[in-house]
């Protein structure tokens, strides 16, 4: 049996791999595929593909998330599989700052360079780190909340998930800003929302069951947590500004909540730009150009008042449909 397998192996080992200059295959590996945030990243990657094609550089994109969302082992497998696939390079949003270190090092060793986007990696093997300044985003949320509450009140931080560097930086930024206002009292900061809307909703309900009457302001560091907390606030009849809610990221539901006044502000990143710059940076490096180790893609605070401005509108509703046919 072993020899049979060996024969199959040997038969295909001899076929040479296709490779040509200015022809790149690039795998873009998000943390998951169901969040709208990742669809914007995908759109940005496709935008890069189209623009590079106009310059005569052919890029073939693979868009591939882990089989089970937020499963680190599954994401490692995807990175390994594309390393074996000998893609020209990988654009990766790591689910964990440590668990993905070894696979990225292995990829680099096998000659597949990696650009990290969105969340940082505790490694120096990546070509570049293209992401939002999440700490600053968290600070902006904290400052806004302090102003909206007039500098005093009880606030809650509903964390996202352990080990996710991007959201942890937001949480730290938020706590940093809150500390500067002695009138603000942090009544809960140790609960985690988790990855899906359902568990985030349950966590929000449980939190509000305990603190619903005393809380004045809440910060949620990602899209699912924001949507879930808004829903939970509506359930107990304290939405619409009674409790000031600042969220992070824009999905169609949270934009609706912002318009309705259930969410007071959203800190938004530019995921489309992140996906775009991830691919463009990788291609530049593949062409032998020098790339920056850290590329900031910007962060903005959107409120009901400024959400009509064209630049904010584009951040709230990235032109995904223009790039992705679904």
């Amino acid at each position, binding site marked *: *049996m072993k020899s*049979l397998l060996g024969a*199959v*192996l040997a*038969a*295909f*080992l001899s*076929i*040479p*791999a*296709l490779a040509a200059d200015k022809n790149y295959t690039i795998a873009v590996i998000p943390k998951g*595929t169901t969040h709208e945030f990742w669809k914007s990243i995908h759109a940005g990657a496709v935008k890069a593909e189209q623009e590079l094609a106009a310059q005569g550089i052919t890029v073939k994109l*693979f*868009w*591939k*998330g*882990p*089989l*089970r969302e*937020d*499963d*680190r*082992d599954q994401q*490692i*497998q*995807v990175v*390994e*599989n*594309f*390393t*074996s*696939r*000998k893609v020209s390079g990988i654009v990766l949003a790591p689910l*964990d700052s*440590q*668990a993905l*270190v*070894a696979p990225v090092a*292995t*990829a680099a*060793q*096998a*000659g597949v360079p990696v650009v990290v986007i969105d969340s940082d990696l505790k490694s120096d093997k990546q070509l570049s780190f293209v992401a939002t300044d999440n700490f600053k985003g968290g600070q902006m949320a904290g400052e806004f909340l302090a102003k909206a509450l007039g500098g005093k009140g009880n606030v809650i931080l509903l964390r996202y998930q*352990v*080990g996710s560097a991007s959201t942890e930086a937001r949480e730290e930024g938020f706590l940093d800003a809150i500390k500067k206002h002695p009138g603000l009292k942090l009544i809960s900061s140790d609960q*985690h929302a988790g990855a899906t809307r359902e568990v985030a909703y349950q966590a929000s309900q449980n939190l509000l069951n305990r603190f619903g009457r005393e809380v004045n302001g809440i910060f949620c560091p990602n899209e699912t947590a924001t949507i879930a907390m808004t829903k939970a606030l509506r359930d107990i009849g304290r939405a619409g500004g009674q409790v000031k809610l600042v969220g992070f990221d824009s999905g169609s539901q949270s934009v609706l909540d912002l318009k309705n006044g259930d969410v007071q502000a959203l800190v938004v990143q530019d995921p489309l730009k992140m996906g775009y710059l991830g691919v463009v940076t990788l291609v530049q490096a593949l062409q032998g150009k020098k790339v920056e180790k850290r590329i900031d893609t910007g962060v903005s605070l959107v409120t009901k008042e400024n959400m009509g401005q064209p630049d904010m509108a584009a951040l709230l509703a990235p032109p995904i449909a223009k790039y992705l046919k679904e």
Partner: protein
Amino acid sequence: MNLSRGTISRLLQSGGPFLGLLLVCGLFALTEERSFIFTGGNFKNILVQTVIVAVGALGMTLIIVGGGIDLSVGSVVAFTGVLGARLLVAGWSPWSTTLVLVLVGGAIGLFNGAIIAGFRMMPFIVTLGMMGIVRGSAKWLGNNQTVNAPPDSPVSHLMARVNPTEFWPLPPGVWIALGLAVLMAILLRETVFGRHVFAIGANETAARYSGVRVGPVKAATYAISGLLIGFAGLLQMSRLTQGDPTVAVGLELDIIAAVVIGGASLSGGAGSVLGSLIGALIMALLRNGTNQLGWQTYSQEIIIGTVIVLAVGLDQWRQSRRRG
């Protein structure tokens, strides 16, 4: 004489899954990506990705042959992984850490087995309960966080792929898994204990009347499987270089699927180590191949689900033909 007849029936039994593996290989060979899929480096990759499911499937084969099931193994992998990371951080040596993890896994298995055999409770319910208890304990032990193991510890290199573009050298984890598979095959096929496990799975009452000590044998299957799961926890930690209390959710289902694709019957009395290993390989190969073809994630889930139903359906069809 007896031995050679056993060998033939064993080959027949694993023939189905092996044909399945060849079929999957053949399908991928028709694609343009074959030049990437059929490389030494990628086969090493597939083996490394199979190891954790495979080690789990060794113990699960024993349990399922004996007519039982264990739903708690994913949680035990997470628990022992977190425990291992904490021990390494606390300065324990790799050897003693490994020993503790294997023993803790075995103890949890023995506990499961003792309840199932002692109180004659449904394995499904007991291990479903244990799944929650151990998962919760893992989160408690990890203080709701991932515990980063020292990345330079020898344990962290168990699954590391040195020279990723070549088949050799295989990481130690693969060799250990192969060694364990041989031991398990001998235990299941060549020992009195193994024959008792088959007898209990085929007909528990008959086994009891013919003098098999059903309770202790059953409990032992869970305990032995537990030892292996403890080791799988070490491998998982090595792969992530951290103990993650949320890892391996649903791993038990992958393991059960591998065993079932490998020709085991969930009603007990049938199954083989080789078949289970091939079952695990089929699933890893499907995942790997569809990955490299750039297929959507949902298509992988649909395909693997279909393969499970087809494999079991075909197996039943073959057996009914053989009988008829």
